[in-house]
């Protein structure tokens, strides 16, 4: 088991944001975490990457407990978060963003090689490598955010709403890229509101509701589940 979460409890002051959730990600899997606004999806990711501290519970990655590890060390262990809302460094050039993604890597030659291979995956970014990233289009920014995540050679990539605010065509492109990344060996934990797309590519999925996991199963199972359809897929 690559990542396992046990009884995770997170508070924002008095607000009980995560009320003891359990889930796991196996090596090579795409696991989706779906749910409405405020269900605790981003909180979960932020807790895994160490930006938030859980009050209780256990997070183990590769057999080590990491719930007390600071974020910069978690990055070094191979868990990389691509934050919500295309949070790139808008006033840096595209290549500088990528360089920041490789912050833990000190060897300039390796960074250069990695930047090239990321550009091979995202040719669009190569064209725009000297542009200020704040001037990229929404889809390009999301690609850059993912590309920056890849620069650190993640074992587990945490994607926070990669489809947010993108046109359907771009969403499909992004999800193709996600699948592609997964096929090359990176495990993925995907947080999404776009349940349809997320469930379609996920091996397994969990449904989060007000801080609790209320349902789990394979992606296909949940796609057909009545209550999921009603709650998240707009069916009647």
């Amino acid at each position, binding site marked *: 088991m690559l990542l396992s979460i046990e009884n995770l409890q997170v508070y924002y002051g008095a607000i009980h944001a995560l009320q003891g959730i359990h889930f796991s990600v196996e090596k090579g899997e795409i696991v989706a975490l779906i749910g409405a606004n405020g269900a605790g999806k981003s909180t979960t990711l932020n807790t895994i*990457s*160490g*930006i938030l501290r859980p009050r209780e519970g256990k997070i183990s990655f590769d057999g080590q407990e990491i719930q007390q590890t*600071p*974020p*910069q060390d978690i*990055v*070094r262990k191979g868990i*990389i*978060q691509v*934050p919500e809302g295309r*949070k*790139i*460094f*808008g*006033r*840096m*050039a595209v*290549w*500088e963003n990528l*360089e*920041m*993604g490789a*912050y*833990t890597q*000190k060897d300039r030659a390796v960074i*250069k090689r990695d*930047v*090239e291979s990321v550009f091979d995956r995202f*040719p669009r970014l*190569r*064209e*725009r*490598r*000297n*542009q*200020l990233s704040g*001037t990229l289009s929404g889809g390009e920014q999301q690609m850059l955010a993912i590309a*920056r995540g890849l620069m*650190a050679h993640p074992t587990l990539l945490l994607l926070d709403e990669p489809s947010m605010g993108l046109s359907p065509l771009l969403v499909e492109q992004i999800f193709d890229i996600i699948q592609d990344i997964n096929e090359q060996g990176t495990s993925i934990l995907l947080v999404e509101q776009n349940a349809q797309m997320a469930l379609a590519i996920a091996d397994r999925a969990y449904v989060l509701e007000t801080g609790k996991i209320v349902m789990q199963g394979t992606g296909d199972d949940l796609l057909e589940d009545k209550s999921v359809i009603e709650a998240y897929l707009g069916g009647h």
Partner: protein
Amino acid sequence: MRTSPVRNGIQTGTIFGIIMVMMFLIGFTVIGAELIGKILGNPSISGMPDLIYFVIFMILVGVWCGVSAAKRPLYGPDSVKDAVLAGLSAGAICGLCAAVTGFIFGSVAANHIDVRAYLVSVSPESISMFTFNQNPTLGALALFGVMTLSSFLSALVAVEVRTSQKIRTMIENTSGSISETVHSQRISDLLNNKYARYGFYLIVAIALIILPRTWGGYWNYVFGTVGIYIILGLGLNIITGWAGQLVIGYVAFFAIGAYTFALLTAPVPHNLLWNFWIALALGIVVAGISGLLIGLPILNLRGDYLAIVTLGFSEIIRILLKSDLLTTFTGGPRGVHDVGGPTLFGSSFNTDVDFMYIIIIAVLVVSFLAYRLQNSHTGKAWVAINLDETVARATGINAFVSKLLALALSAAIAGLAGALFASRNQFTGPDDHQLMVAINVICLVIVGGIGNIPGIFLGAFALKGLPEILREIENYRMLVFGILLIVMMRLRPEGFLPAKRPVLEKFTADQRSSTDPASHPGNLETNTPPGKGK
């Protein structure tokens, strides 16, 4: 819908009229006349400047008013008429404001009432100058006439200049040829040429060696102050410009550096008389450590806590230094006298020229350090934290340690500046460490161009050098700072010399060689500004 030109003019005129009246009430009209006199080579030795300079000043205000009123409606067949009409009405309104003010104060002065009890700056002399040394009625009429006429004529000229094809092509040609020269291949080759650059450095170096010897004590004093403020600006820029953490009480670290140095080298109160260089190093270290200690409890918080805490800290330091309680230890309100000067190989190295050299070297060292930091791994991390702390942490940056390092470095550099300052003045006291020092430094960093090293040089010259040269406006420093900051925020929000992200170099060179050039047109695109890429 367009607003009518008269209404436009009245708006502009009202604004200028109010500014005019305010300037008069704070006595700035006299200062303005004095400045013009000085610029025209006829400084008033004592008392009031000549009336003619005041007239010029008023005409200049009128011209400005007219030009800004004539700016807006510039299309349609009536645009010339409109613009002139706007200029005329603006001048009339502005003149009316001035005239009414002049009449009121002129009458008051004619009745021998001294308004200085209420308005400190409005002396009878300045009133009489405001009304052109005439009686109130005539003066008011003259004011009205001068303002209206100058505004009207300037609007006319402005429109003429703008609409006349001949003048326009002339301007375009000149600016075109200038920018062509600047951007031409030859110049850029020259700039990139290694020898040319070394030659430039050599000239600067020679100038820096020769100038302090030739230009005399006064200029050494002025530029020494500028140098110290450059050091302060470069230091503050690390934590505020790059790491994005506002530090308001930066003067605290300046004070710590100054006092550490002063107490170690002065005969009173401790009679330690340490060597200059050791005391200097210790001043830097102690200031750096104090920055570290201040940062430890607050830098893992986000928001403006650092600004508030350092603000409080600087006031605490100043009040402590001033208190009678610590007089035996810090010299109290009277400060520390006979602070030691530099020595070199045992002999004194303490003339104003020598000290200028030390400041120049310190500025060079700090600039070099700042330059290296800017392009370093750590420097990148600071910028990333500034842009988005959460993402920066998610990419593996230890935000707390990075910020702490930035603050400690900033503080240490302020300590260096403080020690140099105390040593140069051979004195330091609580009043050297007012909050105003820190505000000056923040201003110069912002005005020059936050995050940009050459910008800080420019800012220091503009804010510390110019006031020394233009001593008249010293009393209006706060006013000028305020205006300057507002104007900067409106016109150049990133400062005179905004920081350039080092965008266009890194990957172009090896791109050409490493991959097939046909596969990506990016090489051509590199010089296209953002937004035109598509």
